[in-house]
C-alpha cells in the first residue's frame, strides 16, 4: 500500500504509523463518559470509505487524515490533520477545567 503524503509525496506504507479512526480527533469533555467511550472505543468500523489517522513517522512527522476504502484499500484523499483546529482543547486556556 502506498500513501501520498501531502508534503513528501507518494510513499510506501512502511513509513507510516496507523493510529485509528478520526474519532480520536474529537476531544471529550471531562466527566462525559459517553463521549469518552465514543472517543476511545466505539467505532463505525465501516466496510467502505473511512477517514483514519496516520502518522508519517519515518518521513516528515505530519499527522494525516487519510480517506481510504477498507475493502479495496483505495486511498482517495490525504490531508494534514494540523490546521483543522479540531477539538475543544484547542480553544481551552490552561487554567480551565477542574477535577
Amino acid at each position, binding site marked *: 500500500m502506498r500513501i501520498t503524503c501531502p*508534503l513528501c*509525496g*507518494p510513499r*510506501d506504507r512502511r*513509513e507510516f504509523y496507523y493510529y485509528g479512526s478520526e474519532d480520536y480527533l474529537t476531544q471529550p469533555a471531562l466527566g462525559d463518559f459517553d463521549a469518552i467511550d465514543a472517543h476511545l472505543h466505539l467505532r463505525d468500523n465501516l466496510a467502505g470509505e473511512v477517514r483514519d489517522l496516520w502518522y*508519517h513517522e*519515518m*518521513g*516528515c*512527522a505530519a499527522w494525516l487524515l487519510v480517506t481510504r476504502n477498507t475493502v479495496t484499500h483505495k486511498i482517495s484523499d490525504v490531508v494534514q490533520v494540523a490546521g483543522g483546529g479540531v477539538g475543544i482543547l484547542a480553544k481551552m486556556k490552561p487554567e480551565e477545567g477542574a477535577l
Partner: protein
Amino acid sequence: MVNLIAKSPLWGQAPLVSAGVTLAEVDLGQVTSIAPFDMAVPGFPAPNTVVADGAARLVWTGRGQAFLIGGPVGDWAEVAAVTDQSDGWAGLSLLGAGAVDVLARLVPVDLRRLAVGDCARTQLGHMAVIVIAVAGGFELLVFRSMAQTAWHELATVIKMRGARLAC
C-alpha cells in the same frame, strides 16, 4: 580543567571504495534545526528541496522543519525554534556510478525523482534517514547512535553488488 576531545560518530572508519561506489563519513559542520513558528515564512525550503545559501544549505527535513547545514543561524532565531543538531546525526556520503543502485537496496523511495537539489526524509533499512541528492551521489544523515548499523548495511549491499558485478 577539562579538555574534551571530539569524536565523530564513525571515528576511525576508513572510506569504503568498491564496485563503483565510495562510502565515507562526512563532516557536516554546524547543523541547526530551524522550525519556524509561522510555517509560511519566506526563505524556508519547499518540501523535499534544498535551498543553497553560499556555503550553507537549508535542507527540508520535515513538516515545518529544515536543517541549516554548514552555516550560521543568523536571523532564523527570531522567527523559528532553533536547535543545535550538529552532534545528533552522522553524515555519510555515497558517491559513484553505483550509488543509486546501492541506495535502492535500502531506501523505499523512487530515486528517479531525486535530482541534485532534492532531499527526502525516509528510512534506510529500519532507521530514519535524510537523503540529500548531491552531484555524483547522495549524502545521508542518520542518527548518531545508529551510524554503525547504517555503515554495516550499506557496506553489506556494496559487497553483494561487487559480487554481482563479478558474475
